[in-house]
């Protein structure tokens, strides 16, 4: 997924008076929608000042998070609901994913990378490798996964 959309997107230099810039999607757990989300996330990351490589990586992490929800929480059912919230802070992008499926195994989110012949587990490895903060919570209303990526030069607060 390239961030190159022809002309460079305008960088949003300052936050609006209302605080973080917010963007919300409520989507069905259908893999056909993943490309739509990738396009939006890539564009948002570029607008928020990330370079092409980081845009691609952030997009990959978000895609992997959604794929995990569809595959594991919803067992590949395509008609369930996922809420994706994005907040653009002055120093980072924060993504949160809420689903109402099976609880995730939290150990998956702190797993070490698997060896080269493993057939699974690379998605969570990629998410942890790319994002600065990864936090999973099981709430009464469902599973909440939060991912943060700080702008270059901003030290992670983790």
């Amino acid at each position, binding site marked *: 997924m390239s961030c190159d959309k022809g002309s460079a997107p305008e960088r949003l230099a300052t936050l609006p008076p209302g605080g973080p810039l917010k963007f919300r999607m409520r989507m069905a757990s259908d893999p056909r929608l*993943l490309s739509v989300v990738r396009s939006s996330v890539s564009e948002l990351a570029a607008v928020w000042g990330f370079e092409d490589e980081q845009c*691609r990586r952030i997009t990959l992490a978000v895609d992997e998070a959604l794929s995990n929800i569809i595959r594991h929480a919803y067992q590949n059912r395509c008609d369930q609901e996922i809420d994706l919230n994005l907040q653009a802070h002055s120093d980072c992008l924060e993504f949160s994913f809420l689903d109402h499926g099976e609880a995730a195994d939290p150990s998956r989110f702190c797993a070490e990378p698997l060896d080269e012949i493993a057939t699974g587990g690379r998605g969570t490895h990629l998410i942890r490798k790319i994002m600065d903060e990864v936090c999973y919570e099981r709430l009464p209303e469902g599973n909440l996964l939060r991912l943060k990526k700080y702008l270059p030069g901003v030290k992670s607060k983790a």
Partner: protein
Amino acid sequence: MKTATREQTGTTIIDVTGDIDMGTSPGLRKTLLESLKKTPRLVVNMREVRYVDSSGIASLVEVLKEARNKEKRLVLFGLNAAVHEVLQLTRLTKFFDIRETEEEALKA
């Protein structure tokens, strides 16, 4: 994601176009494994692949393992920066036989 198949002497070339994600990787996996049954050497043209996720990588790993089990070859070529990055992040760059061009892939 779409695939097209070409034949050269002793080699099957699969041209892949589009994004490889959890929605499309099962189809790619099936195409590659079926093609591998009929050829000693499978060359995959990734020049028109814009994006690959971990499910796509897992499919390629599975095809490579099957090729090795059957003492056949799997060669990839034409990977763009995004695909290279995913292979690097998953530490698989050296696991695959990757070439720049089709000509190099056919000579590999």
